[in-house]
């Protein structure tokens, strides 16, 4: 099983987070855009799920393994710009292009896109709690704000959904670019967690410490917190 030429980059919690986020956000988009009564029941439950996942990922960004930590992939704007120039040069097949600094985890631009997606989905899940369709569907915390404020937040919720669709499109486009044009295999590792060392011109890397038990406990706590938020605070 353990291949000496690969290394574990993404811990199991980060990978599961990614898979479940993909699933729940897909369901949320489908049900939210349809807007039917049954669909919206599912929409709300999946929205709570997204909120729990995002909160967990934020905590995991401090408590998780090496490449899951924000400190490992949020780098200076200057380095990000250099990275972007490197990719641009590579895509233009400029022979004098500088080497792109190898990164096992998120590269500088990818890191910022992670931050942006996390914040956007956090805002989306949060505004949804206060939103209403003005017919039958009410977010569980709608009573904490005035009708006017709820309408405003509903407006943001609808606006963010469009932004999220654009961002997902860009995210998929970026992955395709890495896979096809940059020959940077990032799709499979996000599922298996392992990357081939030789592809990253890195000779030695240790497997990350997955800390599955810590992840499980943290996730359970976050689910409990979200449950209290949407159920106990309902009126």
């Amino acid at each position: 099983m353990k291949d000496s030429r690969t290394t574990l980059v993404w811990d199991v919690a980060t990978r599961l987070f990614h898979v479940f986020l993909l699933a729940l956000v897909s369901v949320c988009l489908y049900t939210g855009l349809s807007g039917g009564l049954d669909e919206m029941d599912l929409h709300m439950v999946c929205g709570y799920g997204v909120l729990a996942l995002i909160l967990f990922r934020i905590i995991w960004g401090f408590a998780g393994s090496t490449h899951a930590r924000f400190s490992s992939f949020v780098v200076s704007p200057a380095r990000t710009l250099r990275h972007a120039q490197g990719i641009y040069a590579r895509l233009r097949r400029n022979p004098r292009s500088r080497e792109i600094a190898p990164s096992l985890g998120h590269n500088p631009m990818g890191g910022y896109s992670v931050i942006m997606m996390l914040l956007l989905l956090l805002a989306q899940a949060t505004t949804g709690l206060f939103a209403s369709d003005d017919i039958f569907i009410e977010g569980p915390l709608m009573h904490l704000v005035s009708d006017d404020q709820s309408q405003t937040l509903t407006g943001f919720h609808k606006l963010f959904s469009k932004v999220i669709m654009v961002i997902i499109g860009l995210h998929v486009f970026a992955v395709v670019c890495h896979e096809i044009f940059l020959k940077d295999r990032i799709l499979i590792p996000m599922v298996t967690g392992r990357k081939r060392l030789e592809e990253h011109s890195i000779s030695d890397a240790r497997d990350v410490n997955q800390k599955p038990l810590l992840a499980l406990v943290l996730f359970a706590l976050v689910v409990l917190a979200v449950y209290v938020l949407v159920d106990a605070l309902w009126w």
Partner: protein
Amino acid sequence: MTKVIRVLTFLLLSSATTTATANPEGEARYRQGVMKSVGGHMTAIGMIMRQGIHTDALKFHADAMASLAKQSKNIYPEGSDVSRSEALPAIWEQAKAFQKATQRFIDASEAFAEAAGSGDQRAVGQALRGLGGSCKGCHDDFRAES
């Protein structure tokens, strides 16, 4: 003969004046009241359906909804398109489509009232979906986005 013409002219003019309202603000505020009543009954129906309380009042709210639905076709007179309203100009520009949407609301609310009277839970749920759909259909096309 002149009398007949005079009467006809009067009828024609009066019908024309009733379609274009002389009190746009009053009309807009009135229909907000009617639509808020619709929303109030919908909230009550929602609590009955979701929380299982006041189940014996379902028929009452369903009948009220059906009465309000019938009134909904009278509350958008020509000329009541005031700027502060969330009613979109499409209501008057696409009068035929709007009339269809209102009729859908009337039919769906009557079907819901009937289902509420039958006490058949499945039928009530199904009719409520139809009712919610008729609200949403009209809001999507004829009401300003929040």
